[in-house]
Each structure stands twice: as structure tokens, then as C-alpha cells.
């Protein structure tokens, strides 16, 4: 187990390092001079030279990379060009707001997804299961930005129940106003992923219910409740956790889109802003932060998988 933890941690460090090279390379090597990309096609050579000097673009790429990496390791994420401010506090603020959105959605996805999966598996073939399957199919097939538009259309434009876009802190608007702005984005983010998780949880649960040890548990005369929750769920959860880790990534992607639709000032919106404004230092920093968060999420999934899997926890055999 200790070896497993160390191995996974080393792998995360490796991925982050490699990703920093990749992000740096894409920003600096792809066709299109950085300074021109920032200033536009019709920039004067003088302006380009001035900007290149400011950004340190005259130095060799390897030096630039080492400089950038060293700064990052010291917690300095660079300077936003478009806002002319340090990137770190910008990202931190946006990250906090995104975390609220993501945290709420993810908690709902875990609870509703696994709950829905178990329900579907235990009611296999009945009308309720089939209805659920149809609704899930719709939520998976339809893109979340379209759900977002529909939600704004109904609840904001027509019914005027909820604000269409924006964000207000608890300090500004109280808990009610804060929640009102979160409700639609959280709902849209949750629905598609819940459908995904519960479908996979359902099939994983069904597969476990077919296994011989469930037959044996029933032959022992255990009540169905124990068979389901002690014997079956314990084995169906690890695959569901793998799915949840993948979905954490989809969620992070979804946040970019949903924050854009709802004009929610989070990290996703900031990244899209950085691209629109060609604010490359901010983009680099933001991407590194996202990579780190995703790597940590995967690490946590691996660890909880290992905790639920006795083969990894107890390796040695008994003679």
C-alpha cells in the first residue's frame, strides 16, 4: 500500500512536469508569433520588439521555460497582460467561485448518480427503470450548453423566477441571492453527469448481482437488504469511482461552458477570457492550475479505489 501511494504521487509529479512542458510548448512553438498573437496582425515592429523584451521572449526557449517553472514553484503564476495584474490572486478568486459550483454539483452527482444506479439495477426492466433510462439518455445526448439556454429561457426569461446570469457573494446578496445565482448552473452541470454515473453504476451493480457470491449470499438466507448493501454495493462501488474520476474531468470541462453561458466569474470563464484577450501568461497559469486540480482528483479516486479494494490493502496471503 505504501509503495502504491508513493508510486502514484511520483506519477502525479511526472504528469505535472510533462504538462508544464506541453503547455509551454503549445503557447510558444505553435505557428504564430506570441507577440503578434497578442498585439494583432498589424502591430508595428517596434511594438512587437518592446513586448518581446517585456515578456523575456528574446531569450532561448529553454531559459524562458526554466524561468517560468521556477517562478511557478515559488507560487508566482506570472502577470496577466490584459489586466496588468499578478495572475495568482485572479486565479485564486475565480477558483474559489468555481469550487463552489463544482463542489455542489459533484456532491449531487455522487449521491444521485449512485442512488439512481442502485435503483435502476434493483428495479431492472420495470416501468420506473425504463423511464429513468430514457430520461438519462436525453440528458447524456443533449449538450449542456443547450440545457443551459433552455433553463435561462424558462426560469429567467419567461417565468422570471431566477436571475439569468452573474454571481453575487453572500456578503452582497445574502444566502438567498447567492443560492439563486447558483441554482441553474448547478442543476445543468449535475443532470448530464448524474445520468452518466447512474447508468454506469447500474450496469456495474447488475454485473455484481449476477455473480456467484451474490447467489451464495442469498443461499445463506440473508435478507435482500443485506445482500444489496453489504454484499453487492461494496463490489459495485470501485468501478463507479473510476467513472466518477473521469466525470470529474467532464465536470471541469462543463464548468468552462456553463460559466460562459451564465456569465459566472469562475476559473472556466477566466480561461475563455484569457483566450479571447490573448492573455497568454494568464492562460498558461490557469491551465497549470486546472491540470494540478485534475491530477489531484484522479489521485483521490485512485486512493479511495485502493481503500475499497482489499487486494491492494491486504496483499499478503495467509498460509
Amino acid at each position, binding site marked *: 500500500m505504501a509503495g502504491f501511494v508513493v508510486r502514484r504521487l511520483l506519477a502525479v509529479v511526472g*504528469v505535472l512536469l510533462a504538462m508544464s512542458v506541453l503547455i509551454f510548448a*503549445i503557447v510558444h512553438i505553435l505557428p*504564430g508569433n506570441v507577440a503578434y498573437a497578442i498585439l494583432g496582425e498589424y502591430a508595428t515592429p517596434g511594438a512587437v520588439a518592446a513586448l518581446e523584451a517585456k515578456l523575456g521572449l528574446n531569450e532561448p526557449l529553454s531559459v524562458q521555460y526554466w524561468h517560468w517553472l521556477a517562478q511557478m514553484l515559488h507560487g508566482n503564476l506570472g502577470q496577466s497582460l490584459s489586466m496588468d495584474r499578478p495572475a495568482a490572486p485572479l486565479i485564486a478568486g475565480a477558483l474559489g467561485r468555481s469550487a463552489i459550483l463544482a463542489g455542489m454539483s459533484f456532491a449531487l452527482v455522487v449521491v444521485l448518480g449512485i442512488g439512481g444506479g442502485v435503483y435502476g439495477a434493483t428495479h431492472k426492466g420495470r416501468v420506473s427503470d425504463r423511464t429513468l433510462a430514457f430520461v438519462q439518455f436525453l440528458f447524456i445526448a443533449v449538450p449542456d450548453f443547450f440545457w443551459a439556454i433552455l433553463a435561462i429561457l424558462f426560469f429567467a426569461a419567461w417565468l422570471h423566477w431566477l436571475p439569468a446570469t452573474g454571481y453575487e457573494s453572500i456578503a452582497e446578496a445574502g444566502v438567498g441571492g447567492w443560492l439563486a445565482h447558483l441554482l441553474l448552473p448547478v442543476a445543468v452541470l449535475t443532470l448530464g453527469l448524474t445520468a452518466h454515473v447512474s447508468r454506469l453504476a447500474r450496469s456495474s451493480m447488475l454485473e455484481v448481482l449476477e455473480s456467484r457470491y451474490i447467489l451464495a449470499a442469498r443461499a445463506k438466507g440473508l435478507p435482500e437488504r443485506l445482500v444489496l448493501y453489504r454484499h453487492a454495493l461494496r463490489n459495485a462501488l470501485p468501478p463507479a469511482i473510476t467513472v466518477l474520476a473521469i466525470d470529474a474531468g467532464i465536470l471541469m470541462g462543463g464548468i468552462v461552458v456553463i460559466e460562459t453561458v451564465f456569465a459566472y466569474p469562475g476559473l472556466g470563464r477566466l480561461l475563455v477570457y484569457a483566450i479571447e484577450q490573448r492573455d497568454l501568461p494568464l492562460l498558461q497559469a490557469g491551465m497549470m492550475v486546472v*491540470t494540478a486540480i*485534475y491530477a489531484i482528483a484522479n489521485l483521490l479516486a485512485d486512493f479511495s479505489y485502493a481503500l475499497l479494494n482489499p487486494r491492494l490493502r491486504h496483499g499478503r496471503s495467509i498460509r
Partner: protein
Amino acid sequence: MSGAALGQWRGSRALRIGGCVVAAIIALAVISPWFAPYSAVAFDVRLRFAPPSAAHFFGTDEFGRDVFSRVLVGARYSLAMGFGAMAISVIAGVPLGLLAAFHRGFAEAAIMRAVDLLISLPPILLGLLILAVTPPNLWKTIVAVGIVYIPILTRLTRSVALGLLEEDFVQAARARGEGAVSILAREILPNAWPPIIVESGLRVTFAILLGSSLSFLGLGPQPPSSEWGLMIAESRQFIDRAPWMGLAPGLSLCALLIAVNLFGEGLRERLDPRLSGRGRA
């Protein structure tokens, strides 16, 4: 009717319905330049924000363009993104996966580490990163989405091939001293294609979703193009005055995605050996 038979029947029904709708949309997309009642790009300022009517089925937009014609022409973009990106990920991903399965050692390590790296960013963000620096257009979006899904095809192909390489019939081929090419062509590929086809079907759906999300964010075809994601993005500011501007491309996108998804599910139920019972004939 038993579960397996029911699955077969449902699978073939999904396959047929999904296939028909996808085929219809492809046909419409192909003939749209001749079939569309109006130009997809011509302005008509007198007709701004006209609601749906007999003349303009889906109304008009802020420049007076016919939304129906624009949606028709826009189908091409979604289809190109879906099938184009799938083709890229299959053409690159499958050989890489086979290479990794056959050449345990350096090639495998290099390929699998690259795959690990590419999946260490969520799909949309990887797409954003690839598209961030250079001016966006349709082809770049297709390539970016294709690259995003290469790792998935590579991993799948590798694991399927590794599983098959352990099988006794491959051992028998090795006991005849067959070369790698013969084993690949005769023993591995004929058995590996069903899961790869199933995955490719799924990838079309996800590629359309990802591609339209990227264009929604402004990283796909640029105005005045009528890509559906872009149309939805542009419609946002007029959502109160002209909801049809977003609803028309949105519902079309939904119809296409549902149809492709149905087709993929049907394929899966047809080809997945775990779902279809292998009875004696």
C-alpha cells in the same frame, strides 16, 4: 422473449431508427445548398427577428437571415466534426494501440506515457489549449477534437489486442512461427474490430458534442458561418426577443445527437459479445 432476444431486438430497432435519422440528416446536409429556400448568409434588414412563419419555418435572425436555411447548411459542420474527428482518432489511435500491444518495451512505454499525458487534461480544456493560440476555424476544431480522442482509441485497442494476444488461438499461431503481420491480420484484427467499431460510434457523438461546445465558446468556425454551436452562442443576447434563433439549431443538434447515440447503442448491443448470446447454430 428472453433478455438476450429482447436486447437483440431493441438493439436492431435502435440501429434502424438511429441509422435512418442519421442518414436523413446526412442527405439533407449534402443537398442543402440546392434545397435551402434562402441563402444562409445574405442579410435582409427589413426582416430582422421575424418569428417562425410559412415563409420562414424557423424565423429570421438579427440580420434578417433565414434560420431554417442556416440550420440546414449548418448540419454539414456538425457532421464534419463528428465523423472527421472520429476518423482522425481511429486512424491515429488504433495503429498506436496495436504498436503498443505488439512491441512491449520502449514503444509501448513511450506511447502509453504520451496517452497518460493527453488524458491528464479534461477534454474541453485540452481542446481549448490546442486551439487557444492560432485563429480558429473548422478544420482546426476537427483536428483538435480528433487529437483529444486519440488516447481513448489507443488505450482501447491496446487492451483488446493484449487480451487477444493471450488467447490460445494466437498462441497456436505463434507455435506455427507466424510473423507479427500475419498474427495481426488473421488473428487480432478480425476479433478486435467489433469493440473498436462500437467505440468509434460513441466517439462520433462525443466529437459532435465537444466540437459544438468549442464553437459555442468561439473556438470553431467563425461568423458568418452557421455552425449550430456558434448559432446558439450568438442567439444568447436575443433570447428574450427571438428564442427561435437558439431553439432551432439547438433542437436540430439534439435530434442529430440522439440519432447518432441511438445508432451507437444499437451497434453496441449488436456487436458486444457480452450482450449478444452466442448460441449454437
